[in-house]
């Protein structure tokens, strides 16, 4: 297979994945609209006289019903779409002969795959309700945006981007970013539901929480790996380049978020702080690359 074949294959996978995710979204919408045929018990039956009440699993009365046939179809489509984007990432890597995160299109592509994988991994055995559909929307938007406005043909890297630390740095940043995206989605869902029900905790806040706890150290590592790379490339590990600055702002907002979680009566604000962190992350990805000149801007729009 030549590089060109691999690149075409990758594009084909992306197009198919977009279609499959769109179908999944449709199926989720359908599943939500159709009346439930059968209301089944979702919780594990507690045996009579049995004393073991499982409170250790953090599940606040999930309102989960066994998925209808359409619902199961939606899930299958989501899984298929996820596999397709992953294949697209691999094909792109083969085509370029390097890690497929050398320009903005590739960040977007790999990021979409990471979001989908992160969410599916979390979802296993947990009730997430309508969040699945929103996750598909998120992936569709990210992937669609990458294809329509960020697409670049496969190419080699400019020499300064050709570094092992860069591969590590960007991989960590994409992973953390994908988790932040899932966290932001769950946070919005939680804040909306809280406005209606007043509940402090639900499966959304639980999801956001887990995801943020994992994402924060990964983001910390991404920033550090970036600093090591900058030291190797430019002779200083921190120079307040706009990209570095917004990475720092993102980090500080999420640190504030974690503190607010530990502070009585600040749960709601904690949610807003996490969203501020994600906004800073997004701005770093889109705004800084496109509008602000800096040492990083040769990464190729």
């Amino acid at each position, binding site marked *: 297979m030549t590089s060109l074949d691999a690149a075409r294959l990758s594009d084909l996978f992306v197009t198919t994945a977009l279609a499959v995710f769109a179908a999944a979204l449709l199926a989720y919408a359908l599943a939500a609209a159709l009346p439930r045929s059968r209301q089944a018990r979702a919780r594990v039956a507690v*045996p009579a006289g049995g004393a073991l009440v499982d409170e250790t699993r*953090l599940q606040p009365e999930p309102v989960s019903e066994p998925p209808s046939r359409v619902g199961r179809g939606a899930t299958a489509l989501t899984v298929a779409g996820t596999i397709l984007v992953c294949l697209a990432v691999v094909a792109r890597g083969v085509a370029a002969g390097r890690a497929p995160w050398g320009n903005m299109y590739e960040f977007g592509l790999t990021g979409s795959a990471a979001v989908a994988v992160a969410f599916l991994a979390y979802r296993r055995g947990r009730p997430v309700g309508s969040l699945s559909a929103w996750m598909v929307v998120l992936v569709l938007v990210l992937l669609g945006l990458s294809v329509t406005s960020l697409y670049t043909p496969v190419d080699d890297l400019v*020499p300064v981007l050709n570094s092992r630390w860069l591969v590590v740095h960007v991989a960590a940043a994409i992973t953390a970013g994908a988790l932040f995206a899932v966290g932001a989605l769950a946070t919005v869902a939680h804040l909306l539901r809280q406005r209606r029900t007043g509940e402090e905790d639900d499966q959304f806040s639980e999801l956001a929480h887990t995801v943020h706890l994992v994402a924060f150290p990964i983001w910390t590592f991404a920033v550090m790996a970036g600093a090591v790379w900058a030291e190797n*490339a430019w002779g200083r590990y921190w120079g307040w380049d706009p990209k570095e600055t917004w990475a720092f702002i993102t980090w500080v907002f999420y640190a504030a978020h974690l503190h607010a*979680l530990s502070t009585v009566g600040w749960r709601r604000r904690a949610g807003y702080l996490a969203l501020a962190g994600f906004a800073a992350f997004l701005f770093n990805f889109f705004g800084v690359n496109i509008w602000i000149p800096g040492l990083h801007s040769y990464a190729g729009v």
Partner: protein
Amino acid sequence: MEATHEEQALGSGQVTRPDSREPAFPPSPRPSELTAWGRWAWRTLTSMRTAIVLLVLLALTAVPGSLLPQRGVASDPAAVANFAREHPDLAPWLDRLSLFNVYSAPWFAAVYVLLLVSMTGCVIPRCMHLWREFRSDPPAAPRHLSRETGHLVGPVERPQDALDAAAGHLEAKRFRVSRTDTEVRAEKGRLRELGNLAFHLSLLVLLFGIAGGKLFGYEGRVALVEGTTFANVSASYDALSPAPWADLAGLEPLELTLDDFSAEFETEGTRLGEPRDFEAAVTYSSDDEGEGSTTIRPNQPLDINGTKFFLTGHGYAPELTVRDGNGDVAASGPTIFLPVDQTFTSDGVIKAPDARPGSLALQGVFLPTAVTGMAVSAYPDQVNPIVELTAYTGDLGLDDGSTQSVFTLDFTDLDQVRGKDGKPWRVSLAPGQTARLPGGLGSVTFDDVSRFANFQIARDPGKEVSLLAAILLLLGLTASLSVPRRRIWVRRNDDGTVEIAGRSLSRRPVPPGELEQLADTLGLSPADAGGRKDQT
């Protein structure tokens, strides 16, 4: 508990009562009591809320520096001057507010210093409290175990041995365990608190590391033409920005020669001309590391005992020989031409003050790939190198003592050399060609083209400390976010039943399998416990 924060389990479905609670802000005392005010101020400063507010402030104050041009930020040294020219009314005000050097502004420093003070004042007492807690036995079980996580009560096979079995099991699981006649109390997860402490204190270490570079380090730049040698003394630098306490007299004794520079560019496709590979072959000799030769590439600096050389750019240095009216060589050798675009259209100046009958200056544009009818180079590599020259005579202004850039001419006392037709004299030369200047002023020969490389030279004595701090930070953070701190209690009731329950002291839940395994070990409700194992 003295520490000014609350702990609250935030996992849903699980309520952990904090050991202590703190009011939103400490109540303010009567104004007459000065020490009380001081204490109130300190409490407020070290409260968790203040920490959050300061963190948000830190994020917000970092923003303007990314939107406005900054002094001393690498991308474009002229950015601030350009901005000031475009916004002459606004710029002085922004400057007064330190908005062109945000990250060394007093208000930015105020935020992070307050934050670090707050953090230290918050974390140190918390440590001492934890230290005391860890040295004493795990606390007694709450009276109503049924309100705790994973509560389980039931008959066991051998009630008299149950507590021993539980203690043994928990000890084997590396819990800290103490027991009474009726209770086993166990706690685990100290690592979380240690991690939290290590993480916060590493921020102070990081500050030291950063300060090391900011106070004792330096950064400089030099452009070297192939074949030339750089000696590491401050006079050899094209630009040097030392920290206040950098020892410029004691720079690492070393010499570096650029033997050869090669560059590769994309030869086809839409990215035609994009750089693909750079390589600077150098030889060095230093007192400390002897002699050697190596190649410096992007991302592959040369490190000589802490002084590092980074390849940051390159360009062309055409070799021109200028002969004066008498036929004597007035200037020769390679001259650095500064690239002005991606295809290395480059500008340069050759000054020959000693030429006879009068001083001569040449202004040139070098095109590595000249194409007829185009004023700029078509490609960055040398395919059809051409130098275009115009000439001037008169006073070069070199004698009046004022410093002058080698890259520009001061035209005030210069006259342009003109041909017989009265139009400015202008030639295009390919390597090997010679042109005669009109009026017997002399001649100029384009001998050859060399390349030059830009090196960034830096020394940062705080770098290792910063790296250490970063590693500590990451390890501490990971421990503090992933290890749950939790307590488990086992109580034997008078009726022969046994109760177990746990409580998380952190935001991570008590690991689900832990209580079930304990129940298994004790033979407590074996049917149920067995049936649930697949969940864990």
